[in-house]
């Protein structure tokens, strides 16, 4: 059967995407429409995690401030909606522009540092965004902001229904995966990956690594703001709580669970995280404790995350032709 992908891991991912594509029908069929809500949330977060993995996994830039871009995306829906502007293109343009500008300015400063300093400075900038939204009395401050109607894209399917919104999310998820796949295999991505492993060498080869990293950081931020825009539409209620630094930390965990620097790792990592969170919290109120222990065990022993385990099924390939 030559049309099948050669690797087991690739087959499993293809099957996963197929299941995701049919999820609304499956959940209706088994009479569990609530699951679609859970899955929508997971896939929105997955887009954010894919964007984080682009800089963290492929570029070696560990940002503890990516939730800020979720916030920028969400408030790009919330604030115009507050003034009864529901045009989706306006929301989209706002999310992409503001996140790009904010990432360009803060990235230009953050990327002058390395390692733990980069982690701290990205976190500091994201807390700035957090406290800014917290202080905006007009837009609800810490009480949050209710979004009464979802972004309107008259040219496409409506976001209003749960299924319509789900397919928006699914389409953007596919686009994100494909985009990252193209990016990391193009010239730009090769420089980003090379700089992760050996920045000194890349400079000696004539690359201004700082500039490439900055552009990568901005691209990642803009992708993440898309997730925020979807999240704003999905929850219909946004508050600064969704962009605290703890959320940024969760995003890093999702990358690690799935597999750092892999294409599908962020997707499976996020789904696993959200499903576990849901399942454990249904069993006991002390689920944080169990969850924490599982995460520690995973970081210590689960080298390569879920993608790493799935790759064990594949034919061992020492080298590439």
């Amino acid at each position, binding site marked *: 059967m030559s049309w099948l992908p050669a690797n087991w891991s690739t087959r499993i991912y293809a099957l996963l995407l197929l299941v995701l594509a049919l999820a609304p029908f499956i959940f209706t069929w088994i009479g569990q429409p609530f699951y679609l809500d859970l899955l929508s949330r997971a896939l929105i977060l997955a887009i954010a995690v894919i964007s984080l993995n682009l800089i963290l996994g492929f570029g070696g830039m560990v940002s503890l401030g990516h939730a800020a871009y979720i916030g920028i995306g969400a408030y790009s829906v919330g604030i115009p909606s507050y003034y009864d502007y529901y045009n989706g293109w306006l929301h989209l343009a706002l999310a992409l522009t503001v996140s790009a500008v904010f990432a360009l300015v803060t990235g230009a400063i953050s990327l002058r540092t390395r390692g733990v300093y980069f982690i701290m400075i990205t976190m500091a900038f994201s807390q700035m965004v957090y406290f800014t939204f917290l202080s905006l009395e007009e837009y609800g401050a810490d009480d949050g902001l209710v979004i009464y109607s979802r972004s309107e894209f008259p040219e496409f399917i409506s976001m209003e229904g749960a299924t319509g919104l789900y397919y928006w999310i699914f389409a953007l998820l596919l686009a994100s995966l494909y985009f990252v796949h*193209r*990016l990391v*295999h*193009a*010239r*730009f*991505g*090769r*420089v980003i*990956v*090379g700089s992760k*492993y*050996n920045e*000194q*060498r*890349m*400079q*000696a*080869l*004539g*690359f*201004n*690594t700082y500039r*490439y990293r900055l*552009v990568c950081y901005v691209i990642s931020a803009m992708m993440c703001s898309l997730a925020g825009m979807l999240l704003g539409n999905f929850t219909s209620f946004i508050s600064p709580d969704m962009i605290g630094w703890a959320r940024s930390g969760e995003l890093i965990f999702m990358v690690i669970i799935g597999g750092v620097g892999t294409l599908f790792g962020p997707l499976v990592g996020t789904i696993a995280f959200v499903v576990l969170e849901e399942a454990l919290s249904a069993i006991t109120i002390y689920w944080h404790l169990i969850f924490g222990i599982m995460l520690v065990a995973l970081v210590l022993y689960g080298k390569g995350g879920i993608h790493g385990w799935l790759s064990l099924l594949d034919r061992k390939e*020492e*080298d*590439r*032709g």
Partner: protein
Amino acid sequence: MADHLLRVTSLHKHFGGIAATDDVNLSVEQGRIHAIIGPNGAGKTTLIAQLSGQIRPDSGDIEFGGHSIVNYSTARRARAGLARSFQITSVVMPMTLLENVMLAVQGTGSHSFRFWAPVKHDTALKDAAMASLAEVGLDDRAGRIAANVSHGEQRQLEVAMALAMKPRMLLLDEPMAGMGKEEGSAMVEILNRLKGSITILLVEHDMDAVFSLADRLSVLVNGHIIATDSVENIRGNNEVQRAYLGDGYA
């Protein structure tokens, strides 16, 4: 005076109280192999790092092709045609040999802000990289991951990457470091083939290699160049022998 591609004038670098580079003056002629020898800790790698831009000198000037490059970044010097290899192997270990050299070729291009076309199908990039791998005899191992090949092959990869940059000058920091006898003579052969077509500044411990390759020699001791001369004259120089070579080469 012949045509000097690289000219270093009164270069100084101190680390605390230690003079790692003490008034170094050096000129390398176009197309020649100029070797720098000296005992451990003489400041050879520090000198190379200043030439390639990883370390900024305290004072002095570095001219390359008639322009002062002392204020250039590492990346800019590389694009100006000054390529270096590292004493401690410095390649992108998880990538294949071909991918490593393709990055080097990419660095010579205008820019790499190309976000869509996969490099895998970029034949121009691939062909140029394969040519450089062939020059060092690694073309049959192009698909192997750098971390999985032998130390000697990694050293050859270093040279292939430097060559792929199509540099005007190569700074080779102990290309034979840690090599066995056979690997070492393979490297000497590679460098011998390059002789004349490319200007090389060679830092090397292996005296047999240096004597067979170099056109000129400079002896670096405690950060200072105590002698620069032809290979024959250096071998006959008593001061150099006392400082460094020992009796075996008398």
